[in-house]
């Protein structure tokens, strides 16, 4: 475990819930590790498993995807369920391919849960730090 290792983490958040929570965390001046960079989509239903692999391939050591709480918070009915189903299948595939599935984290964070967001980001950054940098042929691809 390299103490100087600063993981690179991509966070894909849905606009309506988790992005709002992140904005609220900002307005409330909650500080968290800068390792996490946020990319937003309107809904986690938009998240294509290709994005996750692309993130790992381009240098991410961890990926978090977070959206609205099931069963009924999703702004578009059930986009969060669609994402969850993809996540379950993708998670197992990652494991089979030799990537620790703990590197892909799935969360539900609503617009008012800025404190949960901070907690999740802090926790996940520590977890990935402990896991170390991702060492897998996926990193040697380039494109």
């Amino acid at each position, binding site marked *: 475990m390299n103490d100087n290792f600063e993981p690179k983490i991509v966070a894909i958040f849905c606009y309506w819930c988790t992005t709002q929570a992140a904005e609220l965390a900002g307005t409330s*001046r909650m500080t968290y590790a*800068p390792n996490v*960079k946020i990319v937003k989509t309107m809904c986690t239903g*938009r998240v294509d498993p290709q994005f996750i692999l692309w993130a790992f391939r*381009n240098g991410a050591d961890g990926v978090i995807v977070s959206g609205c709480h099931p069963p009924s918070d999703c702004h578009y009915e059930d986009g969060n369920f669609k994402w969850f189903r993809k996540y379950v299948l993708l998670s197992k595939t990652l494991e089979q391919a030799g990537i620790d599935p703990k590197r892909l984290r799935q969360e539900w964070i609503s617009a008012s849960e800025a404190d949960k967001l901070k907690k999740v980001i802090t926790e996940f950054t520590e977890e990935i730090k402990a896991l170390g940098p991702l060492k897998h042929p996926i990193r040697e691809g380039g494109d």
Partner: protein
Amino acid sequence: MENRIGVYICHCGTNIAGKVDVEKVREYASHLKNVVIARTYMFMCSEPGQEMIIKDIKEYGLNRIVVAACTETLHGHTFREAAKKGGLNPYLVQMVSIREFDSWVTENKEEATEKAKSLIRAGVYRVNYHRPVETTTYPVNSNVLIVGAGIAGITAALVLADAGKHVYLVERQGFIGGNMAKFDKTFPTLDCASCILTPKMSAVKNNPNITLYTYSDVEKIDGFVGNFDVTINRRPRYVREDLCIGCLSCIENCVYKEPKFISEFDEGIGKRKPVYVSFPQAIPLVPVIDPETCIQFRTGKCVQTCLKGCPTKAIDFSMKEEKVNVKVGAIIAATGFKVFDASRDSKYGYGKLPNVFTTIQMERMLNSAGPTGGEIRLQDGSVPKEVAIINCVGSRNENFNAYCSRVCCMIGLKHAHMIKDRIGADVTIFYTDIRANGKGYEEFYRKIMLEGVNFVRGEVASIIPSENNRLTIIFEDTLLSRVRKKEVDMVILNVGLEPHDDWEDVRKVLNLTCTKEGWLMEKHPKLAPVTSLSDGRFIAGAAQFPKDIPDTVAQAEAAAAEAMSLVDRGVVESEPNVISIDENKCSGCKMCISVCPFNAITYNEEKNIAEVNIGLCKGCGACNAVCPSGAISQNNYTDDELFAEIMGVLRE
């Protein structure tokens, strides 16, 4: 032809520049591929900031803009408009948040600066793939739906109706007025609540622009901002509104000679008959028959003296639910609050010990139209000599509600005054802090202090019964640093405010976001307090968070103004983030149709492809994620844009 990108980095005073080295970031951005000009400015959202973009578009032939500042939620619109003024399609702009997502959340300056570089690089990579997006406009229906007819709903309804908009005011109780109709006097002026409320209620009834549906629920809302299709379910009151003349003889003639059933309006300290109105000045003055307690409904065999004595034969036991469909352009949610159920905090003995009341029960007791005719009485009918008021019940408490309910301190002071005034009892207020921060509030507090009300700073540990039906309060007196006891005749629990029990169901129907406690969420706590996160829906009153009547009325008028602004604008922009299907790539596999929650995509059998109705598309992008042929593209969230952004946050 290569893109020509302009990058604008906002200082936002010291909000960004105090943490992020904006000049270093500007220098970095200027070397990124396709970036033609990179600038910093103190406040990008200001006039000169926007002018800078407009000028640069012309001078440098820019065709893409990246603005690194606050958030898209706050100012996305501002910079899109600026681009438009400069002659660019507004969607060729990408906003990067280096404030909420960077400077405000990162401790270390170097780390914040590096993060800003990554985020802006991602924005630049992404914006290369932006395509001009055209939107259309839809006309806006000028009607407004208001859900909840308490003081907030009533106020908003009158403002809109007087402006010529037609309002559908839906209230699920049988009568309007909400919680305020239960109150006796209001602080700090000690105005009689009914006196100020009933003229407004009357105005609602008489205004030709207001259609009032009481004893009704909003069942379903279809459509989109400016064009909502609302289904209202009118529950049967079993008294015909069109025939009833409000004489209330049915209530007098009911086979139950005396009221026997707990009255919800009286918060449990009064009784009503199966046929009832909440109070004699209720609006609409049309009684409701409760099928759970009415003999006719329970046994099928009643002599129906109510009907027999009704001069217009308005009673109709066969009434059924009725569905009404209305079309509106805007919706205001003013669904109000309920009080904390004090039995949850067992130390107060509420519901077990005699003479432990809540403040809202005390309002009913003080109200001259209430169950005791305005007389303050113990349960055995005698007049209390010593009364305790305990503040912060259920509020400021991690075990129940962490927040402060804002109005209770003033209610406690008010009750102290009125009890002293009416029966001269000895009153003690057990408080944690006295929050008297409104206009005239501190002066009122002073007045009550001078009237001889006792104030004890400390928490109550428990209330136990003592001799002669009295109550002993065991409490910590922090100013004396001692645990003490006090015996009283009556305890009034100053209960906090909460969202209604069914807030989750209601918010689902209205498509609103709530906080974890259930308060309706505003779009921005400072800048958009009455707008919800869903287009076309506004929020007002205590449903958003506890507040007093002046603030409620102010918010209701604000929500009405927002609704009016939307409706008078006359048009709304269509959803920009809709999808398109490339028919040359579409294989007709129907996976998109299978995942679309809005049935916006249909199968064209002849061409063997899928086709989208962009009027129904809400822009979630699930079909884009799923399309196995790569034929679907979501405006502003295409695969290319997202792949580029993800790469950009990670590496060069």
